[in-house]
């Protein structure tokens, strides 16, 4: 009887490695925003003009903790889970899906706040949003492939017999 289990899932490894890299980008962005918030520095926007308005609004912190710190925590957890998933830890994929879903929900809320409440956009926040959306797509693709792979594995012995 042939062994139907693949030795290693290379496409999944690539996907989760990419997710880990994107998380690192988000981590750097969040750390920068956290530090500028703590030092009171006014952030310069390059593409948009609303950095000051957004980053000094009441939505930029939860109590005394800057929102960037929560972002940094989220991206670090996402990075850790993506790394573990890339190395084949199956539960890490599940947790990564949950974490990224939470980050996506937060991102959509913050985009709404920028567009309809503050009427101002911040480059660094938009960069974070783009990274989270990309992470979400990657995780969704990963889930889809996993489901397809599982279906194929379940059907394989039937085909052989």
């Amino acid at each position, binding site marked *: 009887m042939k062994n139907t289990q693949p030795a290693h899932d290379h496409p999944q490894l690539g996907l989760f490695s990419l997710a880990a890299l994107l998380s690192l980008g988000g981590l750097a962005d969040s750390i920068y925003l956290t530090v500028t918030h*703590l030092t009171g520095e*006014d952030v310069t926007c390059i593409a948009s003009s609303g950095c000051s308005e957004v980053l000094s609004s009441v939505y930029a912190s939860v109590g005394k903790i800057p929102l960037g710190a929560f972002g940094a925590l989220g991206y*670090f957890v996402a990075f850790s889970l993506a790394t*573990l998933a890339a190395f084949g830890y199956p539960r890490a994929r599940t947790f990564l899906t949950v974490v990224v879903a939470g980050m996506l929900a937060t991102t959509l809320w913050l985009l709404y706040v920028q567009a309809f409440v503050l009427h101002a956009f911040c480059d660094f926040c938009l960069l974070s949003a783009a990274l989270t959306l990309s992470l979400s797509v990657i995780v969704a693709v990963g889930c889809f492939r996993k489901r397809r792979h599982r279906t194929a594995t379940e059907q394989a012995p039937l085909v052989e017999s």
Partner: protein
Amino acid sequence: MRRYLPFAIIGAVLLITAGSGLLLFRSKYSSMPIKIAAGKPGAEPPHIRGSAKARVTLEEFGDFQCPPCGILATTLLKVEHDYRTRVRVIFREFPLGMHAHALTAACAAEAAGLQGRFWEMHDLLFQNSMQWGKESPRPMRVIPNAEPNASPDETATGVRGIFAGYAATLGLDVERFKKDMDTEQVGARIKSDQERAASIGVDRTPILFIDGVQIPFSSFNVDALHAVIDANLSGKAVAPSSPSPTPAQ
């Protein structure tokens, strides 16, 4: 070995992130606090609110289009109210080049000052900065930070009208106000304050000094400012906590 590799990577990233975050924080915070020595330049007479005999002096370097400056302005109003004749506040112009209308706003405040209404215009500008700050610069270009005399207002036709409206609200001579905004006297005052900022190492806003000692941004709240002012009033002034030694200027 492969089993531990992902945890080693995660640990390394955690260490690098914490280290780089700390380094970035220290690099932005290391110049704090600084002390103002006597003899530094600055617009004379400075804009002072409060009693001339006040025992404690708060000196702010601010930009009217900087949101944290607006928040600090509200905090300082509360502090002034709490201490009445025991504190006085000095405002120094430091319009940042990154804010399209900051220099125009500084000119408006100084022009109002020529008619004796600087602080009223100061308060109006901060209270409404979210509104006039959204006016589009025409054409799009950033006003150079260190050149207050270089046609300070070509780019902000919209805000000029808004500021003239504020001048009318304050009962100023609006025509004189409009002319004064472009005078050399106004430009020279702003430039002089900017030179003062440069001479003591101020490079951002808001920056606040209490009796010549810089206050860290984390202390820009009523309780922390009360603590510093109380210490100064009782003659037990202590340097605000800082991650680096205090360089005397």
